[in-house]
């Protein structure tokens, strides 16, 4: 898939260099062709940035640096690797030259490898083609703007920040497949809400997996938050207790952890429906938010997951985790098309602060610039 880099080498060098100084935290890890070409050029132009960022492991360099960064920068650095792959290949595409069928095909490749899926990719390409012919765009670099706009239009409906001030306690039910990062997300969410001055309580509803309770307890201890759990028993019962306790203690936010489940496990889907019913019994109208945790590594199955959990629980939001890897989470484009459930948060790293509200424009910018 890198063949086109070689083909368009001369025009590539220019834009890569110009973007490099603005994103000093994104040094190329594996030396991909165009980067190798551009590296000496950077050195002569901006030697300072190079001395700051020479270590090839970008994550190691970013972790300490990102502590003092604003969150957009943090998102950018979190997505640096994502951008490195997608953005760089796009930079290659948009480097200039004419808009032709080859370009569209390469664009298709890039979108498909970002997990956007066939329907969303086809849709985006059609949009871009229309924009190009409407505005009479000629240059390949203008195509980038058109693509960004089309993608923005597509995923903007997902940008709806979570409002927690309508109810007290505000009950959040977390669901997801095994290993998506539910418990870790709860730890991060607890920190996030505490940062807003809200009191938080955790309910250890994962009564199935070994040591899930201990894992949540550990997150609770780190955040100094109470965790309600039971030795054994029913997830729904734990939730009931937790809500009772939250009401008594006048807690603002209750985060309910549940066991990971695949949508094909019908009995487990029934179980989580029961958890929801019991929560409603404990506090009419609750849960106020049903969040599905999605792993950015997941391919098109993420869409199936959203549909299945939405049908079972009536999802009100999504969390996309593990965006700090090489996965691009492009499947949200597919989700936006077929089942637009608001994407409340994205996880861009391993520390407690690395969960951020989703902003479509920032996400796209971080992906492309």
């Amino acid at each position: 898939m890198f063949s086109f880099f070689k083909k368009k080498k001369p025009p590539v060098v220019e834009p890569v260099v110009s973007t490099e100084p603005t994103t000093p935290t994104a040094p190329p890890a594996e030396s991909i062709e165009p980067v190798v070409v551009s590296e000496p050029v950077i050195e002569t132009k901006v030697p300072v940035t190079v001395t700051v960022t020479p270590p090839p492991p970008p994550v190691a360099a970013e972790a300490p640096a990102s502590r003092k960064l604003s969150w957009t920068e943090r998102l950018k650095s979190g997505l640096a690797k994502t951008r490195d792959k997608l953005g760089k290949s796009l930079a290659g595409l948009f480097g200039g030259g004419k808009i032709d069928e080859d370009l569209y095909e390469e664009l298709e490749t890039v979108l498909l490898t970002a997990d956007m899926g066939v329907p969303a990719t086809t849709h985006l390409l059609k949009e871009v083609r229309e924009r190009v012919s409407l505005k009479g765009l000629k240059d390949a670099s203008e195509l980038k703007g058109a693509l960004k706009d089309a993608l923005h239009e597509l995923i903007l409906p997902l940008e709806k920040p979570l409002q927690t001030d309508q109810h007290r306690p505000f009950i959040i039910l977390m669901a997801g497949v095994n290993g998506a990062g539910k418990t870790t997300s709860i730890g991060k969410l607890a920190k996030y809400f505490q940062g807003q001055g809200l009191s938080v309580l955790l309910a250890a509803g994962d009564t199935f997996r070994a040591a899930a309770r201990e894992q949540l307890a550990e997150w609770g201890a780190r955040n100094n938050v109470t965790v309600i759990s039971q030795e054994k028993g029913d997830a729904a019962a734990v939730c009931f207790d937790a809500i009772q306790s939250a009401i008594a203690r006048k807690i603002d936010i209750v985060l309910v952890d549940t066991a990971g489940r695949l949508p094909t496990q019908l009995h487990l889907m029934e179980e989580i429906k029961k958890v929801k019913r019991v929560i409603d019994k404990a506090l009419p109208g609750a849960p106020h938010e049903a969040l599905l945790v999605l792993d950015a590594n997941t391919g098109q199955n993420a869409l199936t997951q959203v549909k299945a959990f939405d049908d079972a629980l009536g999802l009100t939001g999504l969390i996309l985790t593990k965006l700090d890897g090489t996965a691009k989470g492009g499947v949200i484009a597919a989700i936006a098309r077929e089942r637009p459930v608001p994407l409340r948060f994205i996880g861009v790293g391993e520390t407690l602060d690395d969960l951020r509200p989703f902003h479509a424009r920032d996400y796209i910018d971080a992906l492309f610039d």
Partner: protein
Amino acid sequence: MLDNLTNRLSGVIKTLRGHARLTEDNIADAMREVRMALLEADVALPVVKNFVASVKERALGQEVMGSLTPGQAIIGVVHEELVKLMGAQNDALNLAAVPPAIVLMAGLQGAGKTTTVGKLAKLLKEKHKKKVLVVSADVYRPAAIEQLQTLAKQLDVEFFPSDPSQKPVAIALAAVDHAKRHFFDVLLVDTAGRLAIDAAMMEEIKALHAAVKPVETLFVVDAMQGQDAVNTAQAFNEALPLTGVVLTKLDGDSRGGAALSVRHVTGKPIKFIGVGEKLTGLEPFHPERMASRILGMGDVLSLIEDVQKGMDQAEALKMAKKLKSGKGFDLEDFKAQIQQMRKMGGMVSLMEKMPGQLGQLAKGVQGADADKAVNRIEGIINSMTPQERAKPDLIKASRKRRIAAGSGVTVQEVNRLLKQFEETQKMMKQFTAKGGISKLMRGMKGMLPGM
């Protein structure tokens, strides 16, 4: 598992079947469909391109000319290529080393490493009669060590204690030492999940590998993984001398493209697949079967294995004896059979493995409904007194009303069950004439509602 791929490819093959012969044109159409189907199943793009190219080349070649019909030929080609892509055979775990044979697990966060360690420990202990020691070198995730400890306790396998304050390499070396001194056959080393681009963590696992020198280094991959599977697999493959791949969460729906991608990139055999949350859910990977299934040919072999595994031999013998002794087949036995069937993973998982259209049929409506119907039957039987179960003839109108009320169904449903039971009983009587457990199995089919 891989159902979408099956559907899409079945569609393609159907359109091809309509044509008298394969031409450049209709092959191109079909290949585009195959490409889209594979992409939707999350097979990575480079792998898809490769696959499509080789199928096309072969389909247009002489092999098609020599075969009976063009349709058969292309199914054959796609099937063969799929098998080739996934590896020619199923490789078992290589434990031929000076004990302890060390197995190292590696993978992304949430891929299912710890659960796989548990499943593997159970398999080695029960099927291979090995003395197994497990150790966790995951000092990062909260309660990761406790998770393995709990699993070990459930399995009654020895757990080597470790502590988050220790260094992973130190933990592993201590565990190896312990395993040597206490004559363990196998040591399973669980590690923390890591991103392939996290250089520090990749260094750590390299050091871990160098320190313990495992005979098997297994890469654990989530079957739901998308296009990025290629990048991850490549990075891990470059960092570690992998010996095999474990594909997890294959009981999820419709994906599994990662199986093709990972296999293509690493060239390492997929040794096991993880299905289900129970610790028994680890099965050997059969590329042949998987390919057949993709093409809608069904996975009959796995089905047979499932049946053998789920069938409680003692229970079956008891039943056979009972039948031989001439004492009739009663509702209690009927219930026992239902429970046996549930042990095999329920109707859905059994039906999914049925070939072709039967499988499709089962998938859509029947699967979930059949499971429900089976539950209902059990509920109705549970509402009967022991006497009624032994002598169903006793059940007349008022008893029926009571049973219906007790199990929350209508009287009609109780009637239906009794009728079904009568038919099964008749069938059983036929079997007793000749006997044999194998025939009992077939008998089950008769009692399934709506089949």
